[in-house]
């Protein structure tokens, strides 16, 4: 079977400190849950409960009030004991409800009656998705309701793309999820396809997971939608929208298909859709890859949203020595934690802790960015840029003394999608991607 890859740039990344994708373990329920009222790049939801109130498992505790906001739900039953706020590494202040575990679970361990969604209209499904506060379960964590609303396909066909592209070993949680909840991923895809009015399912699967693609196809026969698999390369950032679309267009051309527009979602988002629409359940937990050179037993855990990151590391045996860096997301693209009390949120597909110097020699995966040096013009940033930009030149124009932010510079800056490849391989440790991405945001 032909493997489709994006044409230029990218990085092949292996990391022995990432957890194995072979299996998962369910973490202990947290005694105290920290439920943030804001998704990562969104706007804070309005709390609908107060300190002292008792909340049930899955109960609405924060209501989104429009675009960029998602409803927030309690993930454990208990009492709201206080509200807390903290400054995130992204520079904004977040607020959360702290819930002390009390009372009985109404969903956990109970056999639930599935709801038949086949008779639901696309609008009803989208409403349900909005009501349960579903967001993209990685990256910016945009509310799915917003994505559906903003998506305006052309008059042609529409394809629902199930993105199982594992270009990063830190996507171990998604890999485990695909195996353990394969049926739910496919049915979630079918539900999302109905909500988006897509006429076809397309499973974009990494080449090393070809067997998974076959299993998806087998399962997809249960749904009255044509389905196919496209095998993709595993070079980072293959899963990014731009690189994935390049591959899908190439596949469309080679196979003589007419795929039309693409509606792309990952497996974690699709199981959330499944749970919300079929079992009227908000996102209560998620698979999280926990690892890094400072963690004793890296593994994939099924963790309640709101569990504190410190507790999650404890579940994995704690730290080997003092960690130098603790962050959420992948080492390739993540954000540092202010402290270990920050909670697991819907987008936390991985958390990791690195020892001093990453516990590795300089230049090995797990190493940490060190002191910046002068650019030596080696051009490696140009070699790995998947967009074909000149990060060195853009960085010097934006960040240099000349501050040459002309229209042509800003236009090219806007093309950067922030994959971070240039910054990852810069021998002078320059914050190329960060500076360029920030300039792009300023432009917007």
């Amino acid at each position: 079977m032909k493997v489709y890859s994006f044409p230029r740039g990218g990085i092949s990344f292996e990391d022995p400190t990432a957890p194995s994708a072979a299996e998962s373990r369910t973490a202990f329920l947290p005694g105290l849950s920290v439920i943030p009222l804001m998704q990562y790049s969104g706007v804070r939801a309005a709390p609908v409960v107060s300190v002292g109130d008792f909340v049930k498992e899955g109960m609405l505790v924060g209501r989104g009030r429009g675009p960029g906001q998602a409803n927030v739900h309690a993930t454990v039953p208990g009492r709201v004991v206080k509200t807390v706020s903290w400054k995130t590494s992204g520079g904004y202040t977040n607020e959360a409800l702290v819930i002390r575990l009390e009372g009985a679970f109404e969903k956990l361990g109970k056999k639930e009656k599935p709801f038949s969604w086949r008779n639901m209209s696309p609008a009803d499904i989208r409403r349900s998705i909005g009501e349960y506060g579903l967001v993209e379960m990685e990256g910016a964590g945009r509310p799915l309701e917003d994505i559906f609303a903003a998506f305006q396909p052309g008059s042609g066909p529409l394809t629902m793309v199930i993105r199982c592209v594992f270009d990063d070993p830190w996507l171990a949680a998604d890999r485990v999820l695909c195996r353990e909840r394969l049926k739910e991923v496919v049915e979630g895809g079918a539900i999302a396809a109905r909500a988006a009015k897509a006429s076809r399912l397309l499973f974009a699967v990494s080449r090393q997971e070809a067997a998974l693609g076959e299993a998806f196809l087998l399962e997809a026969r249960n749904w009255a939608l044509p389905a196919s698999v496209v095998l993709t390369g595993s070079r980072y950032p293959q899963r990014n929208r731009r690189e994935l679309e390049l591959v899908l267009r190439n596949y469309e051309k080679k196979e003589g298909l007419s795929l039309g527009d693409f509606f792309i979602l990952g497996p974690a988002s699709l199981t959330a859709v499944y749970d919300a629409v079929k079992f009227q359940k908000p996102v209560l937990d998620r698979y999280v890859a926990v690892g890094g050179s400072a963690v004793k037993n890296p593994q994939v855990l099924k963790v309640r949203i709101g569990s504190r990151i410190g507790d999650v590391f404890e579940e994995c045996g704690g730290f080997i020595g003092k960690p130098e860096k603790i962050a959420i997301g992948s080492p390739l693209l993540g954000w540092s934690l202010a402290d270990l009390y920050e909670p697991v949120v819907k987008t936390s597909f991985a958390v990791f802790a690195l020892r001093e110097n990453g516990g590795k020699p300089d230049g090995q995966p797990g190493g940490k960015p060190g002191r910046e040096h002068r650019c030596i013009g080696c051009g490696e940033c140009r070699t790995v840029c998947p967009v074909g930009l000149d990060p060195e030149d853009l960085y010097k124009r934006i960040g240099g003394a000349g501050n040459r932010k002309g229209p042509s510079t800003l236009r090219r800056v806007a093309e950067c999608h922030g994959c971070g490849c240039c910054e990852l391989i810069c021998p002078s440790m320059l914050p190329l991607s960060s500076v360029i991405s920030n300039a792009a945001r300023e432009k917007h």
Partner: protein
Amino acid sequence: MREKDAPLGQKPQINLARSTPGRMWLISACAFLVIIQSSLGDSFSSLGIALVTVLSATLTEALLCYHSRKSIPLKDGSAVASALILAILLPNHIPPLYAAAGAAFAMGIIKFSFGGLGSNWLNPAAGAWLFVRFSWPEAFRMALGNSPLILSPDNPALAFSYSTGTGSSAVDGLVRSILNGSIFSLTRAELPGGYIDLFISSAGGIIADRGLGLLLLGTVIISATQVNRAWAPALYLGVYGALVRIFGALPFGGELGEGDILFGIFSGGTLAAAFLLSGDPATGAKSTTGFLLTIAAAAFTGFIFRYFGAEPYGVILAVLLLNTLVPLIRDIESGFFYEKQRSP
């Protein structure tokens, strides 16, 4: 639908590259190996040249930084790397004062006046070599002496295939017989005499040619650790070797296809030019295509200068010539490859 994939505050948390100082010190270590090999056969004259260039380069850099109130970047290793590369491009018997002047020129004029590390489009070591070569041509010629490593009308036999064997050493004979009896006999080939001597030469010449054995080891280390793009020197040597094979004997009265590839590659500073100078990405083109073309052009020009010109180290001159075109090449590349709007 267009989106920004990265949420606010999200950025790479690790760095996968070998750091700039790491690269510089690795190159320095490889160059130092060459100097050590050369020193063993010249009563440590090569080592003296290396020490003088390093001292001169670091002192010049320190003084200039102190004068302009900049922090002294000695730890980045670039001054030492440039000094050692310059040292291996110089004859082992060049007067140390000239070597010191060359190193000061590399740091003060080529590197510092262009704005420091990464801003110079001329390779500092190659530029300093040019400065020494043409400021004191007689001293340079005298230092080389009547080197058997130099391809010249006085030494026409070296241009021809299988003709370096005249007067080969006992070590050459021993190693050659072992190789011919084992590896080469499998393909019914035979290594003629003299080539092993190239790797253990104690004759006069530039230090890079005298320390060829360890230079070869250094090039392997540099390529294996991805300090340079391994395909760049491979392309250089491929183009250069093909030209030598096809046309290399013509200037010396030979026929097409009689040129001696091995001698062409293992002398005249060719390996140093291929691995340390032409493959230096800091003074090369921006794009892969541009880099590829300039490498091929450097190999071609180097061959012309060395075989059809009067300069036995024409390969270094050729690199410098291409370096001078770098600003123009980069400008063209910017417009051609990097200024265009892309889709989707």
